[in-house]
C-alpha cells in the first residue's frame, strides 16, 4: 500500500463574495522511499496540495491518509514527527531575530527530544554547515546557507516524509546544484520520502522518479522519469512545458 494516499482532494478559498476552487478533486499516491514530483505553472494548485497535506489549507472535500490511516484534523504532534516541510523562500521562512540555534532547538523542545545540543550540532553537520553557524542570525547567511538551515530544521525531528515547495527556485544556479545534491544524499542515507513541487521540469526530472502535471487545480497527467525524458506524453500542455524548458527558439514552437 502507498505511504501517502490523496483521494479527490478539494480546496476552496473563501474570498467573501468570490470563491476560488484551488483544487478540484486531486488524487495521487506516493510510495514509501519514493521521490514524487508535482509540476505546473503558477496558480495550478501544486503548492496547495502540499499545504493541504500538512494542514495549512482549507480542505473542503476528499481524503488524505498516511500509512492507510486518515490524518487527524487539526494535525497532531505525531503527524509533524513524520512529515516536515521546506518552504520556497529561505529569506521569508526563518525568523529574522532568532539565532540558528534557537530555530533548530525549538522543534526539539516542542517534541520533547533529549540531547538537544548534540542534535543541533549533528543537524548542522548533516547539511554541510559547521557548528560555527550555530549562533548566527539568518541575515548573516547567504541564500543557499539559509536553505540548508531550513532543511536542517525539517530533518531535526527525524521525519520520514519531507515536503519540498520549490526548494531551489530562489537560489542561483550554482547554489541550486549544491542544494539538490544535498537533498539527494540525505534521501539515500535516511530512506526519506520526498514530495517535491517545482515549475522547473529539469529539477523535477533530476530529483523525482514519478511526477504529476497539474493545470488549474487538476492533475492532467502522471508520468515516470523515463517517459518525461523520452517526451512520451499525450497532453499538449505537458508538451508545451517541455518545449518551453528547452529554451528560446527563433521560430514559433514546433510540436516534437
Amino acid at each position, binding site marked *: 500500500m502507498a505511504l501517502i494516499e490523496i483521494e479527490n482532494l478539494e480546496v476552496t478559498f473563501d474570498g467573501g463574495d468570490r470563491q476560488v476552487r484551488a483544487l478540484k478533486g486531486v488524487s495521487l499516491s506516493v510510495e514509501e522511499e519514493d521521490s514524487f514530483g508535482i509540476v505546473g505553472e503558477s*496558480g495550478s494548485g501544486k503548492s496547495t496540495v502540499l499545504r493541504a497535506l500538512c494542514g495549512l489549507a482549507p480542505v473542503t472535500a476528499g481524503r488524505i491518509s498516511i500509512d492507510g490511516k486518515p490524518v487527524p484534523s487539526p494535525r497532531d504532534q505525531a503527524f509533524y514527527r513524520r512529515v516536515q516541510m521546506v518552504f520556497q523562500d529561505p529569506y521569508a521562512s526563518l525568523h529574522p531575530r532568532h539565532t540558528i540555534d534557537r530555530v533548530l532547538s525549538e522543534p526539539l523542545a516542542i517534541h520533547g527530544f533529549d540531547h538537544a545540543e548534540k542534535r543541533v550540532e549533528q543537524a548542522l553537520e548533516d547539511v554541510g554547515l559547521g557548528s560555527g553557524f550555530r549562533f548566527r542570525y539568518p541575515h548573516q547567511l547567504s541564500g543557499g546557507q539559509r536553505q540548508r538551515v531550513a532543511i536542517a530544521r525539517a530533518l531535526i525531528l527525524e521525519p520520514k516524509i519531507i515536503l519540498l515547495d520549490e526548494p531551489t527556485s530562489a537560489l542561483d*544556479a*550554482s547554489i*541550486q546544484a549544491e542544494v539538490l545534491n544535498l537533498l539527494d*544524499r540525505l534521501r539515500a542515507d535516511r530512506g526519506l520520502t520526498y514530495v517535491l513541487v517545482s515549475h522547473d521540469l529539469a529539477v523535477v526530472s*533530476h530529483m523525482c522518479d514519478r511526477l504529476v502535471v497539474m493545470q488549474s487545480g487538476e492533475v492532467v497527467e502522471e508520468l515516470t522519469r523515463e517517459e518525461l525524458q523520452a517526451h512520451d506524453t499525450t497532453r499538449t500542455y505537458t508538451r508545451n512545458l517541455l518545449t518551453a524548458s528547452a*529554451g*528560446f527558439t527563433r521560430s514559433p*514552437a514546433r510540436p516534437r
Partner: protein
Amino acid sequence: MNPLLSVENLRIAFPSRQGPVEVVRGVSFSLGRERLGIVGESGSGKSQTGRAILGLTPVTGTATADRLEFDGIDLRNASPRQWRKLRGARMSMVMQDPKFSLNPVMTIGKQLMEAVKLHGGKSEARDKSLAMLEAVQIRDPERVMAAFPHELSGGMGQRAMIAMMLVTEPDLLIADEPTSALDVTVQIEVLRILDRLVTERGMGLIFISHDLRLVSTFCDRVLVMYAGRVVEELDARRMDEASHPYTRGLLNCLPTITGDTRPLPVLARDDAWLE
C-alpha cells in the same frame, strides 16, 4: 558604423564601514543594434551595470568610466535636462518584477499614456497605447487599459510594462531579468515579443539574466560577469567553446531533463578569478 553604446572601464563603488567596495570593476563593451546578454550570479554586478548606463546608480554609489557614450552623447556629464530627454524616449529599462515597478494606484492605461504624452504625441496617446498593448499580444487591450496592476497576472503585468517601455520606440532597451518572475511557458512568449520588436524596429537590447542557458538561446552575444568583472565574452551560438572555468561550471551545474549525472557537478570557486 559607430556603435550605439560604448562603455569603457566602468566602475561602481558603494561606501561601507570598511571603506568603499567596488561592485563593478572595470567593465567594457560596445553594443550595436543587437541582442547582448549579461549573465552572472547574484552580486556579480550585472544589474548595477545596467542601471549605470541609464544613470540610475543609487545616490550612495558612485559610477565612473573612461567612456560612456550613447549614440555620440557623453553620458558621464549629462545634465538632468539631457537625461530627461534620453530616458524613456531613447533608452529605457524593463525591471524584474511588475508588482513592484508599476504604480499600484494608477490604471495601466493612464501609466502608458503618461509615457506617450511626456515624449510628444498627446492627441494620439490613447491609440498608440492600445496599439502597443496589442503588439505585446494582450488580447483585450481595452480591459487592460482600465485595469489596475493588481488585477493583472504576472505575465500580463510584465507585458504591460514592456509595452510602456516600448511605446516611445527607444533605440536601446535594457531588460533586467524581465522573465524571471514568470512561468516557463509565459517566459518564452515574452521573449518572442522582445525578439520581434528588436528585429522589426532595429533596437539594441541588453538582456540581463542569471539563466545562462536561456540567454544563450536568445541573445547574439553573451558577457559572463563574475565579482564585478567580465570574465568571458562569447558568441551565443558557440557556448560549448566557453573556456573560463566559471562559465563552464555554470553550464555544467544545471540539471537537464535528459541528463542523469548524479551528483550534479558543483561550481568550485577559485580566488584567481577575482583578479
